[in-house]
């Protein structure tokens, strides 16, 4: 019970749990939570049996689109997303890594065309279990844990 109280309870909205702590701020950024007017609470470096240290985000009155959920899958494939209605879990959303990821991942190769032209990046998930992404343009491969989000 004490564990539950570390982050305030949510009446309506979305809970994103089991985020690796070091990915928390990236998740906040890709969901644009740093620019919303909703109430957002998050916990950082909470104890987790699975992850060691985990983070959790609770957003009031916001429900994620499948597209947003997919972006989370790039950063935190182990995350759990629950839709909360009247303090109850109304729906569990499944994380699904998309085959093609456009405009989300930044290519780390400074000589890549995507870092030299005003254009969107495009990556393909070539190994979803290992989290390997290949740049459609310069053909370099990045591993999930090294992914940089635009």
């Amino acid at each position, binding site marked *: 019970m004490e564990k539950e109280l570390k982050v305030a309870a949510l009446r309506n909205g979305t809970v994103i749990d089991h985020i690796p702590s070091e990915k928390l701020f990236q998740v906040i950024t890709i969901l644009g939570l740093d620019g919303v007017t909703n109430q957002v609470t998050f916990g950082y470096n909470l104890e987790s049996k699975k992850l060691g240290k985990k983070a959790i985000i609770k957003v009031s009155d916001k429900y994620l689109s499948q597209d947003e959920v997919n972006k989370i899958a790039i950063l935190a494939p182990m995350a759990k997303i629950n839709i909360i209605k009247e303090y109850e879990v109304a729906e569990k959303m499944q994380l699904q890594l998309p085959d093609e990821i456009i405009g989300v991942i930044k290519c780390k*190769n400074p*000589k890549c*065309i*995507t870092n*030299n*032209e005003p*254009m969107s990046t495009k990556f393909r998930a070539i190994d979803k279990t290992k989290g390997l992404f290949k740049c459609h*343009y*310069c*053909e370099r491969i990045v591993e999930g844990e090294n992914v940089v989000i635009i």
Partner: protein
Amino acid sequence: MANRSLVSITDYSRDKILQILDKAAAFEKNPNQQILNGKVVATLFFEPSTRTRLSFETAVNRLGGRIIGFSDASTTSGTKGETLKDTIIMVSNYADLIVMRNPIEGAARYASEVSSVPVVNAGDGANQHPTQTMLDLYSIKKTQGRLENLKICMVGDLKYGRTVHSLIQAMSHFNPTFSFIAPKELELPEEYKLFCKEHNIPFEEHTELNEANIADADILYMTRVQKERFTDLFEYEKVRNVYTLRNKLLENTKPNLRILHPLPRVNEIDYDVDNNEKAYYFQQAKNGVYARQAVICDLLGL
């Protein structure tokens, strides 16, 4: 139109590779034909490359096509801040096909997506240079009579050498055995070793270029060990002469062995090897014209 471009060697299937090689053989028999009569080919070289540009332009000229383009990016609107996209859209209004070399990796893929005419990648930084791979394959097939079941020994800069990487990908269709000979600093990147394992391609790795390590090779693919790749010049001095191929080293190699090199060669092949019947690198460069004639005609549906 993007699907009609040649950007990466992985765009070609096994059958497509063989089909282009057959076409190249036909051009070798009869290189002067008026197939491209009335066609305009743009050669856009954003960085200099004498050999590749002349080879493409020879290929087009011998087929009766006309050429527009530049060989120095400093004479283009790029210096005024024009994007690659705008340059390519403009040029695709003028030409029937674009040949582009660009130091930016992925530039050719992007160009193929914005162009209304086919794009041939003539090298995009350290990434791909597929027509080089096609001429390498053509040279291997011509000298060995086949592509299947060959032992290919690659020597030198296997880390940054894009021709090496593309050749590994292309040869994977033909059941090869590889031997990689490189200094530790320049060994083949892990992802290509993984590629070999995934495709059940046997390979061995050595750090020394000696008789034993090339004894059973059918193809010796030499590359330049570039000074600028080394952070420690002392390391460079240590390896530069170790990877020099000399006539003496070739005495006990197989009679069908042929030496390839994408050129330019600096000191990794001694000049005394040039007259050895196993030296094939200059003919290899000549084959580039036929391979490029075949690629260009294929992309234009001719």
